[in-house]
């Protein structure tokens, strides 16, 4: 086609546009030119342009990932469209150009296995280096614009200063374009939807891991949460694989002293000075840990020892106390069983703790600590 004949065609189209007067439509009447217009309401049964009809008709090609063949057929269907496009050849040509581009890009896709969709194939389908999205209607709620910002941009209509819609395509043309473009977008979205589902599965698992760590894991006091936030690596997909316990108080029971005839059980407050907790399992649902700890009880002096953590609520350890409060750790060993109060409160409620008196000890101890802070602050 020579440049002269191209110019003559363009001039003819422009001339036709001047005599085909665009018809303004009053504001707020929703028409096929509006982005909110639902194509389903006018998609008559048997209309081969409808997304659902097209999907059913080409189910075998879609299932076989034969995208190049599929889009070639759709391009042919548009070329054979019974709608009169004679007064809008530019718009028709631009749509065909985009379809050509789509078919060309499909040629770059890896050969698919018949009837089998692989993850790598979907990723390749979406990778812009090998396959750019069709991007028909713009999604900014303006009047319908196809391929916005590209050389093949098509505007169906625009709103003038009087809030009237000025149509640039006839209603039949607008409908033809919208039905076919939405069908192509629907087909193009099939691999995208598979990626969406896979992404969602990954994020759901990530949330489970985070919940296991922060909601069901070894409890963290505010200062511990703050320290671990800076001291342990994590990503949005993966919480820390381990955790530091720092000045972590717990209520506990001590049994002892061991190997004596007068062993008793006594409430005590343990303070894990520094500990290490490690998470394991498919979603980090289990943990174990150790810490160096101190023990405070009202009938003897400071205790020092270690704790071993396992599971979600309990730990066990050994403590040696300063029996006579003379700064000498001289007792026989005591077995110490502590309870993660936060987690236990979530499971058993306060009544169990009140029964054992442990809650009272913890509350009094924490009140004493807050009083110490106040005194230091003032």
């Amino acid at each position: 086609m020579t440049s002269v004949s191209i110019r003559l065609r363009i001039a003819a189209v422009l001339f036709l546009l001047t005599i085909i007067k665009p018809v303004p439509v009053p504001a707020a009447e929703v028409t096929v030119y509006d982005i909110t217009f639902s194509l389903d309401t006018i998609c008559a049964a048997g209309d081969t342009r409808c997304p659902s009809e097209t999907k059913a008709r080409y189910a075998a090609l879609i299932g076989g990932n034969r995208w190049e063949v599929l889009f070639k057929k759709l391009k042919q269907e548009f070329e054979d469209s019974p709608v009169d496009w004679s007064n809008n050849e530019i718009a028709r040509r631009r749509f065909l150009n985009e379809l050509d581009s789509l078919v060309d890009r499909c040629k770059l896709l890896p050969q698919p296995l018949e009837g089998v969709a692989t993850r790598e194939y979907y990723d390749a389908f979406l990778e812009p280096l090998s396959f750019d999205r069709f991007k028909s209607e713009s999604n900014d709620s303006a009047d319908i614009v196809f391929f916005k910002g590209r050389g093949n941009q098509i505007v169906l209509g625009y709103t003038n200063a009087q809030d009237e819609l000025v149509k640039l395509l006839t209603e039949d043309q607008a409908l033809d374009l919208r039905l076919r473009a939405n069908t192509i977008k629907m087909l193009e979205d099939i691999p995208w939807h598979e990626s969406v589902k896979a992404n969602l599965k990954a994020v759901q698992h990530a949330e489970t891991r985070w919940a296991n760590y922060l909601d069901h894991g070894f409890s963290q006091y505010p200062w511990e949460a703050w320290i671990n936030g800076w001291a342990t690596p994590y990503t949005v997909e993966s919480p820390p694989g381990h955790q530091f316990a720092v000045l972590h108080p717990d209520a506990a029971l001590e049994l002892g002293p061991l190997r004596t005839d007068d062993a008793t059980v006594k409430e005590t407050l343990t303070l894990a000075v520094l500990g290490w907790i490690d998470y394991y399992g498919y979603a980090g649902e289990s943990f174990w840990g150790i810490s160096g700890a101190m023990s405070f009880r009202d009938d003897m002096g400071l205790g020092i020892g270690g704790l071993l953590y396992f599971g979600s609520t309990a730990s066990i350890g050994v403590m040696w106390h300063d029996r006579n409060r003379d700064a000498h750790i001289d007792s026989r060993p005591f077995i110490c069983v502590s309870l993660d109060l936060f987690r236990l409160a979530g499971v058993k409620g306060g009544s169990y703790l009140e029964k054992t008196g442990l809650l009272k000890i913890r509350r009094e101890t924490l009140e004493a600590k807050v009083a110490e802070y106040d005194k230091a602050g003032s």
Partner: protein
Amino acid sequence: MSRHVLFVVHGMGVTDPVGWADSAMAKLMEVAKRYEQKHFPMAYFENNVIVVPINYSDILTAKVAEWQTDAAGVDAFARTNKVEDHGVLRWLEASDDVQRKFLWSHISHVILYRFFPLIRERIRVSVIRQIMEGIEREFVGQTECRCSVLAHSLGTSVAHDCLHILGSNPTWKDPETEKVWRNAFKPDDFRFSGIFMVANVSRLLQTDIKAYESIVRPGPSLDRSSYCASYYDVRHTLDPIPMPFPFEPDGWQPGPDVIAVQHIRDWNIHSLEHYLDNPGVHIPLLRKLAGTRSIGHRDEHEAVQAYSQFAVEAIGDENVQKIVTKLLDVVRIAKSSQAPAEYLSAFAQFLSLVDDLREVLE
């Protein structure tokens, strides 16, 4: 079916994880009905705008309860950060129980999100999951679907962070096969139509994701460094909360659409419902959801002109005027605050003044 999905992200202080969005959505429906006589497509709006509330309050509430929220734990933390130098915590201890609980229920959420990275990440993954679920549920199988976000207060920071991660994370790993999938929500494949940030604190509370440098910005669909067609920054001249670092990005092309309002129709100036009542705020939102031509420019102009700063009963009320003058002072303090404690103090004064406003208006 042509539909528009609106994700709504709440602000600080929300404690009802299920019903928190009801009043905001009732307000949105109420303001839409104001234009029914002006041919607003109400039927389309009611049937095709899908509201998806995004909740993260349960995570914060549970953590606050776990740490026994009478400030014992975070008190110590706040002291470490020198907040006590300005006497804010003494105010907290000295104020009556109702005010103290109200302040604490709001501030604790902000403190936890801003200063505790692990809690922040926990919230982020939950919000991202909810957005992905909403998109998967509403988009899959649909031929025509659009998506927007309406965020309020602390929710603007949460939404900003989560949208950036959603759009920029390169891959997501399959937990069973451990193979990685391409992120299907990158700007190449997915974009939001509109992002409405009401009482925008995304700059004020920014941490590892910088508000002006993320992909959460408007741009044409071919611009892969942008994630939405339109970005609206909604601010109230008497709301001091976003003031220390108002959202003012330099060099954004295109920039955000700034909507500044100054009305007083309720005592809670900061609430999302109060913002939505103003036509300057709800008309752009309704147009985004129901189409550009759903409310004509002439109708918009009339609505904005007819909307007075004060409710009819408060016009000329000297007590209201006095409170407004004091609110302007608080806003000025918040704007110029250099330290967290100054800002907290301004926030506390703001709460006190809106309490006075409630007494006057009710």
